[in-house]
């Protein structure tokens, strides 16, 4: 393997067991669900139920956004492509090797958790 090339780029499955397309799908489903829930403003007529539903939907939308974020973080290569396409402002952990003294291998030897599965 050429120096600096990442094995993960050659495979759709990272070592923690989640295929890239699955993460992308999870993220997309979470974002779609978040949007569709956020888009509805149900007027249920009953103030007691209405309050409960509003609070619940708020928490679910928040959870879906966390799910989308986590799905993005799990695979930096996929997240980078998605960010580029969507113009997202979410920051992920991938840092170009050239910015690290000694490169990726040196970082690995030093015990960095950059590549550790965070599932």
């Amino acid at each position, binding site marked *: 393997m050429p120096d600096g090339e990442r094995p993960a780029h050659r495979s759709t499955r990272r070592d*923690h*067991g*989640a*295929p890239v397309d*699955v993460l992308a*799908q*999870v993220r997309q*489903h*979470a974002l*779609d*669900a978040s949007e*569709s*829930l956020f888009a*509805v403003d*149900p*007027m*249920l*007529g*009953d103030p*007691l*139920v209405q*309050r*409960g*539903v509003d*609070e*619940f939907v*708020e*928490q*679910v939308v*928040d*959870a*879906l956004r*966390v*799910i989308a974020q*986590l*799905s993005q973080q*799990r695979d930096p290569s996929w997240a980078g492509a998605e960010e580029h396409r969507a113009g997202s402002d979410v920051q992920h952990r991938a840092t170009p090797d050239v910015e690290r003294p000694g490169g990726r291998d040196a970082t690995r030897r030093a015990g960095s958790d950059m590549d550790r599965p965070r*599932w």
Partner: protein
Amino acid sequence: MVTTLRGTDPGSVSRLGGLLRTTADALSGDLAALPATSPLAQLATVTADQVDAIGSALQVHAQELAEAAAAYSRLQERAAALGLIVTDWTVSEPFGLIGSDVAARRGVERPQVQAQADRLASRLARGRAQLARHLAQASQQVARASAAAR
């Protein structure tokens, strides 16, 4: 003709329940491919479970509202046949001159119809309170799962 109860909208409640269950279904479909112990999978599992449970509870509540509306209509019909009127679960006698025999009969029947109205209103209130508790618990569980996954 059965109309909805004032302050309720079974159609909207049912549609929201359906939307939540569809959302839960989409989330659940992704779970099989994720490692079960990961924070992502755990959050998605809790979220999907709670969203599905609340969606289901809302649909049940919509059904209860529709049944309560039908029961309320039957109650109004029964009351009307006795010369009584029902407004917001309160049974009363209409204004006007009536004979003493009719007044005596209404005096006996009105409490019976009111008791039936009270039972229906009480059942509906229990359903609402139960749904409100369920919503509060589900909100807390989703919030806790989100906080743990962050």
